[in-house]
């Protein structure tokens, strides 16, 4: 691939800690190669900030291959930037051209408070999983794996839901800051499998209750979550969650 170099203006959210006010700072970066990832541009910028005796920009990142879900930049008004089905770490600078201005902010959501600069606290997601995002089977209790056949269609759909990387882009994309796609994906994965059946109802009720408790908003029905999801998780799983929740709620009131 032919590559090129560009000069860019970066406007980046700087916030010293969770209590500080925060503001956008402007940085000029020169000679950026189109072959770099956007995180590598931040590496280079940080290197120069350190050399100038300034504080580097804090941002979450780890695997840099689109699977750990750590990276979380809100780029030019889109979680993970302009490319569809792509995490921030996989966004390469071919997406931009010489002279561009790029605005980078953290995820914005009441349930994801800023820790520093572009780093937010997503532990609410862990607490939602704690509320029921599992199958209660202790180690050593399992039967032979092939004694539980699963219809391939359901197995594949469960896998598609399970592809969620827990990055929080769905929440950041939603004007209500809703976590319905995240919760819907997990509830659906386990509801589609026979192993998930015994706890199917309590799981849906408890995970939704925890989601509400964490301060996530209600579904905005705009499908922005699906559009921005780096793994392309379908809003059909939100519909599935609604149906699971309704069903569980009805049964719950019966008893």
């Amino acid at each position, binding site marked *: 691939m032919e590559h090129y170099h560009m000069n860019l203006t970066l406007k980046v959210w700087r916030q010293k800690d969770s209590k500080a006010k925060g503001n956008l700072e402007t940085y000029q970066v020169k000679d950026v190669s189109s072959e770099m990832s956007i995180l590598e541009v931040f590496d280079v910028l940080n290197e120069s900030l*350190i050399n100038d005796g300034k504080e580097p920009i804090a941002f979450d990142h780890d695997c*840099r291959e689109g699977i750990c879900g750590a990276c979380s930049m809100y780029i030019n008004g889109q979680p993970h930037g302009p490319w569809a089905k792509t995490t921030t770490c996989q966004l390469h600078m071919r997406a931009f051209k010489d002279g561009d201005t790029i605005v980078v902010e953290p995820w914005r959501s009441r349930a994801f408070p800023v820790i520093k600069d572009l780093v937010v606290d*997503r*532990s609410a997601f862990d607490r939602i999983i704690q509320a029921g995002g599992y199958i209660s089977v202790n*180690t050593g209790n*399992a039967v032979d794996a*092939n004694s539980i*056949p*699963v219809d391939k269609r359901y197995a594949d759909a469960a896998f598609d839901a399970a592809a969620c990387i827990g990055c929080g882009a769905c929440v950041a994309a939603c004007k209500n800051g809703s976590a319905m796609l995240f919760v819907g994906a997990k509830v659906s994965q386990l509801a589609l499998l026979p192993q998930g059946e015994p706890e199917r109802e309590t799981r849906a009720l408890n995970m939704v209750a925890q989601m509400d408790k964490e301060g996530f908003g209600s579904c905005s029905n705009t499908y922005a979550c699906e559009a921005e999801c780096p793994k392309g998780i379908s809003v059909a799983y939100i519909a599935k969650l609604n149906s699971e929740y309704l069903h569980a709620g009805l049964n719950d009131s019966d008893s």
Partner: protein
Amino acid sequence: MSLEAKIPEGAMAEKWTDYKGHVNLVNPANKRKLEVIVIGTGLAGASAAASLAEMGYSVKAFCFQDSPRRAHSIAAQGGINAAKNYQNDGDSVFRLFYDTVKGGDYRSREANVYRLAEVSAAIIDQCVAQGVPFAREYGGLLSNRSFGGVQVQRTFYAAGQTGQQLLLGAYSALERQVALGKVEMFSRHEMLDVVVIDGKARGIIARDLVSGKIERHFGHAVLLCSGGYGNVFYLSTNAMGSNVTAAWKAHRKGAFFGNPCFTQIHPTCIPVSGDHQSKLTLMSESLRNDGRIWVPKKKDETRKPQDIPDEERDYYLERRYPAFGNLVPRDVASRAAKERCDEGYGVGTTKMAVYLDFKDAIIRYGKIEAGKAGNHNPDQDTMVTLGKKVVEEKYGNLFEMYEKITGENPYNQPMRIYPAVHYTMGGLWVDYELQTTVPGLYALGEANFSDHGANRLGASALMQGLADGYFVIPYTLGNFLAGEIRTPAIPTSHPAFEEAENTVRNRIEKLMGIKGTESVESFHKRLGKIMWNKCGMARNEKGLKEAVEEIKALRKEFWSNVRIPGEINEFNPELDKAGRVGDFLEMGELMCIDALHRRESCGGHFREESQTDEGEAKRDDANFSYVAAWEFKSDENWELHKEPLDFEIVKPTQRSYK
């Protein structure tokens, strides 16, 4: 100090059953009172923490990531091996054991490997019960595929995201125990020292990476599940945060380090594109089933790869290894790529890459597909269109990832690939019970050395991590803790905690006080270059000796000129990284010393002085059939201990793939 591997007596196939039948147990009332610390929440750590909590122990788990779900096991692509024999192709525990010992080039411990093969089937059962969505056939049963170095189909998988699915299974089990109050989870925490009291590991010093606060945590035992140390090379397929710190602190506190120089260089990774490069991305081994690897026959070739006719291409693996062709093991494929590039036949802007070409596979599949539809004389375009669809079904997500990174479409032109550091077979020395040389201190998964010898087979890392966590440590830890039921929790005001905390605090203050001119990243890159050039795919005495001196000098420079911005008591990733690079600067030296002393080639360790006439790795079993376990004596001073390897079942032979 002598090395006692504590391998149970008896026939190989009976050892583990026998051990389990006679091991000491802890009663439920006592389990509650016993506290276990688990460092790292990847496959080994999450599965161990969850299983031990289910049994009744009180567990504290730590990870440096913002959530335990992000540990680097998440990135494993291809699959997990298990001797299920669901394909009825003759697989068995013995075959999995045999393949693993041979694949490791006869440098692993037979009894541990046998146990690994034995428990492998139960791992799949456990994961399926948790709701891990493995690939399935239309009948609803589990699907398998093949991987390198074996003749059966024993690899279970979930598309190209097997590690993710397995980790999310273990993570959900872990979170369930958090909800039940049996595991206390400490995310964004880093272990910075082990506390040893009366010769036993009794806790850790950790730092809260958000507040910068240093904490003391007591445990009756400490489990290190902290992964490998491939990031000593700076560029690797590891996550940016993967580090040796936990293992290294344990090493400095008395845990021997086993075979530190055994590093796996994976042949198919996306090559370096420039100085800005921060990490390398793996392209799964499965691609070598259909991709053909080649370089141009002419040096300084300027034509596009698609314009170079077949007769001017050198399919060097097929040429050198007609029996195995493109499917030679990882170590062999990597060295062959390096050899071509060193000779000047490399491709791409940096000339440090070779082609992985799917052109022939696309045509082959296209012809088959056309034939299925009754078209027995398809034209080129039809074959290409149909063939691309088949290739997409098999490898679509990998091709997509390749295109995102390089901007090139691998359906239309060959991938450019080059070997990259991927996994470390070396690790903390452990006995049969996974206990290090410090009583009460255990190492699981990639953090230990025991199962993969000098070269790991594909799809075996996931198997080992989960075997250790779900099925080995729950038994072996009890054997130690049964003797600890009368030990009350030791208050963290104990002088040993005080001393360890002071050591940690002093080191952090020293780092912050240097106020030099060069960034942590810059030192890390420089270390990586030394390691890659002199302790990488090919090693020799002269280079290794130079590397030891260069690392010493670089370490000195680091401790006098590193610049770390910010404060101690705040969220400060530069400070976190500085501590880790400081440890890599010691680890790198030990790796070179180990590589220097092992004057044979084996698996991923290729000493240029020890090769056959045809340039293949040549083992020296008479002199080096042992585990090198290094004891830390003082800074820059180690003592070598040897654990002899006796192969009672799999007799070592020279590997050949011609």
